């Protein structure tokens, strides 16, 4: 190698060293974040990230989530059920089994019955699930109302109504029925439910959006792309310096 070529190679090597260090320092925080978030996303099921919700005002603003408060409740005996489009709360606690758009609530001494169009839930006094029955196995294809009558719980569609004392065996009911109807939420109920209704996103979604850069808007993914490019530059400059040093050592010997 002539002196001119050697000097040029040294200059390139020095420049690469300098920029390799600078890029490395600049993106070190991102490298750590990408690695940690990647590990978390690889184990979402184990960490149950999909079911953990982040509910802060900032997150609600960022994702455009509305803090819609429930306005109505079903009341039965000492129990009450209120709901939004997202969730339902029984006696001020999140319903353990999700049941969108509930139609009514019935309660006797032992059992709480909650229905929506496709499912009848049986819960114990503490809200723990006894049984969940889909309309596939009930005598009507769609539940439109739930009430008390014919010595038991009654479910009905637009034409027929069936009663059961155990939620297993059903018989046609033609007697009077006291239907469950929604009523405006009381001040007491509202005070309990207000702190519980906080819109949020799952931790899995938040980490995915931070990992991909989508959390930071339309330009976020391009910034992450640029960081990815910096990873590639680091790798290439590292390889170049490694091979150049080996060549120099071999040349000296």
């Amino acid at each position: 190698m002539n002196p001119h070529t050697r000097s040029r190679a040294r200059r390139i090597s020095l420049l690469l060293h300098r920029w390799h260090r600078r890029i490395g320092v600049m993106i070190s925080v991102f490298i750590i974040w990408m690695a940690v978030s990647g590990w978390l996303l690889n184990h979402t099921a184990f960490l149950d990230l999909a079911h953990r919700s982040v509910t802060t005002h900032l997150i609600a603003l960022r994702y455009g989530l509305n803090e819609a408060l429930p306005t109505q409740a079903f009341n039965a005996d000492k129990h009450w059920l209120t709901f939004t489009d997202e969730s339902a709360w029984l006696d001020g606690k999140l319903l353990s089994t999700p049941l969108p758009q509930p139609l009514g609530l019935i309660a006797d001494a032992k059992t709480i019955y909650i229905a929506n169009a496709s499912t009848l839930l049986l819960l114990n006094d503490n809200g723990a699930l006894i049984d969940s029955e889909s309309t596939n196995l009930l005598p009507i294809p769609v539940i439109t109302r739930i009430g008390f009558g014919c010595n038991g719980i009654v479910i009905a569609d637009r034409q027929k109504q069936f009663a059961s004392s155990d939620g297993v065996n059903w018989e046609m009911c033609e007697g009077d029925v006291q239907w469950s109807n929604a009523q405006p939420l009381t001040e007491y109920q509202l005070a309990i439910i207000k702190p519980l209704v906080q819109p949020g996103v799952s931790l899995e979604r938040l980490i995915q959006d931070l990992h991909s850069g989508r959390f930071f808007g339309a330009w976020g993914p391009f910034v992450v792309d640029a960081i990815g490019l910096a990873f590639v530059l680091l790798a290439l400059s590292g390889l170049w310096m490694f091979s150049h040093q080996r060549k120099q050592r071999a040349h000296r010997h």
Partner: protein
Amino acid sequence: MTVLRCASADTVYLAPDDFLHQTFSETPQPSVLWLDQAIQTKLTAVLGHPYPQARLRYWRAQGKTAWMLDEIGKEYPITAGFVVSDNHIERAQVLIYRESRGDEIHLPAFLRQFIGSSLDGERLSNKIDGITGATLSVNAMQRMARAALVLNQLAQ
């Protein structure tokens, strides 16, 4: 942090009432098995957790029992039906699938592996081959198959 359940897209491969119609020439009235502490302990051994209900309906006729169970694959419950005869699985069927991926478990080639399986300790006697990309759903099906066999024994 609070628990948030997201809506899932349900794929019904076979409606539960159709599963019963296909299993029995005449669908019997359901029976009820209350899952007391002793039963939950046995279910925990095969499921890895207690069954999240206090009672289960099942159907018995013609020397066999039919069970419909729910088990979470990754995020959402998979509903599957099992027919047990003489302590062996006669039929396994995915009824409702709610996960975003892994629905290959509804294919007959996969489900056929369960037929004839019995309990060997707390394991299935048949070896069940996995499906790439559907590991959690495959595991959920195996857990439910084991639970159906345990429940069939308990309901004798």
